[in-house]
């Protein structure tokens, strides 16, 4: 079943008739050059940007949900998060529970453990490094346990180890081990195509606000597609472990 279905989604000049569906348990990667519409699409999905066309969430139009219901179902990890105040890590994560109107300590500590920030729960956020902060922002979204998690370029400012651990975490979030939980899915926008090939079930290649290609990594990451969208010549070996996509001169 599709958790989210986009039909003819348009947003002034940034998105042009985008249609796609997001399946249960799926991790969908949004790729494309700067300005191709990745962030706009995530914002429309999160319901914080007005759009033309339709977005169906759990079989109902997103506009039928009230703001709080929508926020419980769809969580957004935006790009370049910053806290205006020197809040503690615990308080930041508890922000994720605002839509639920509780500060459930169990869910907060679970989210902190999942992202490995539980050591710093009482530290002020501005004392942590950029990469550590990013994990706190993610823990904030995880604490809300959304059905659909949208992450906008979550790998910026992470080192190599945490890049792959961040994506495994999102991967794991889309397919939790426990069968009792409601099905979930993840949409993540990425610039690193090898990482996208390695962790995502399907990829959506955006170009100038339009879907250029949609499908499995092998279908989307072809020399022709990358040449057409990025104007670069590439060498692609998706069978290697990890997959290799390198730019040739």
């Amino acid at each position, binding site marked *: 079943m599709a958790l989210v279905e986009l039909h003819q989604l348009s947003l002034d000049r940034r998105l042009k008739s985008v249609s796609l569906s997001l399946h249960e348990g799926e991790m969908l990667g949004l790729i494309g050059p700067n300005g191709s519409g990745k962030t706009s699409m995530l914002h429309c999905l999160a319901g914080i940007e007005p759009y033309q066309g339709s977005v169906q969430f759990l079989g109902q139009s997103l506009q039928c949900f009230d703001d709080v219901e929508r926020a419980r179902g769809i*969580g957004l990890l*935006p790009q370049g*998060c910053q806290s205006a105040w020197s*809040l*503690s890590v615990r308080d930041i994560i508890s*922000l994720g529970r*605002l839509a639920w109107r509780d500060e459930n300590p169990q869910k907060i500590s679970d989210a902190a453990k999942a992202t490995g920030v539980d050591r710093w729960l009482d530290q002020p956020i501005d004392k942590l490094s950029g990469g550590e902060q990013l994990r706190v922002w993610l823990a904030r979204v995880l604490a809300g346990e959304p059905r659909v998690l949208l992450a906008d370029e979550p790998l910026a400012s992470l080192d190599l180890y945490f890049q792959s651990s961040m994506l495994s975490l999102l991967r794991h979030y889309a397919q939790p081990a426990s069968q009792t939980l409601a099905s979930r899915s993840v949409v993540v926008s990425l610039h690193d195509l090898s990482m996208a090939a390695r962790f995502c079930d399907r990829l959506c290649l955006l170009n100038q606000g339009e879907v250029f290609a949609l499908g499995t990594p092998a279908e989307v990451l072809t020399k022709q597609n990358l040449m057409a969208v990025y104007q670069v010549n590439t060498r692609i070996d998706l069978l290697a472990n990890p997959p290799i996509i390198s730019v040739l001169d």
Partner: protein
Amino acid sequence: MIKPTLLPSLVLLLILSILLSLSMGSSEVSVIKGLWEWLTGQETLDAIVIGDIRLPRTLVALLVGAALGISGAALQGLLRNPLADPGLTGASQGAALGAASVFYFGIFPQLGGAAPAVAGLLGAGLAMMLMLFLAGSARQSMVIMAGLAISTVTGALLAMALNFAPNPYAMQELVFWLLGSVANRGFDHIWILLPALFIGGSLVISQRRLLLGLSLGENVASSLGFSTKMGSRILVLGAAILVGTAVSIAGAIGFVGLIVPHLVRPFAKNRPDKVLVPSALAGAILVCLADSLIRSLPPGPELKLGVLTSILGTPLFIWLIWRERRRWL
């Protein structure tokens, strides 16, 4: 969780500053005895001095301080800017202009002593409505710009009123009023301040969750299910009611709304939703103590409350700017 001792300590300080304020004055009277006699309706000297002279002044100082403190905390949270001041919204200047027109044109004669307050509230409300209309979306940068524009216009009109003052006494009265004071205020002022504090405070407190959500920016707040547009309008309206009434009754008492949230914030774990009530209490304490300080000065021309808070507040403000600058270097 905020430090559990914060609210009780503030309440204790508040009681102490009320007692201090009631005991300050030229004649020696017993505070508790006078208060008791006033409450039980006896017409003794102590009862008149405490109940009819010092109590209204103390209460006005408390209410004005509370209004300024909580509105400062709300605006700083909304604009995510620790240097935001209630005056930013144009409400202070609007209130001042409204009250000034009472001195000049003698409007609302039937209201007597409460006329400047009512006119000031109208002026603040009008300025805020113009500001919201100009800002359109109640977005933080637009609120600051529109507030600046409205403050400048009303400031210019106020200067014009001074320019064409009918006589030097009217001008003197207006200038003194603008300097800010809680002297010679009566219970009729309290009956205006009290509901304003209740309504404005409730509007602000009803949006406390939005203030917390806004800590991580408008996108995060919207994605957490808040209607940021509606919520910020409610916050601005609440702040306008608070600031407008406070200014129209006590004149311009600067820096209280700016400084008080800073003093409280470290004790409330920097949470914008948890500084609101403590800021109201701390604002009340601060203005009450400042007014007691003024009354303890040697007799002569009275130092105006607004002048004192500005003189004390400016060094703190400069220090805040310095600290902010270092944070971004």
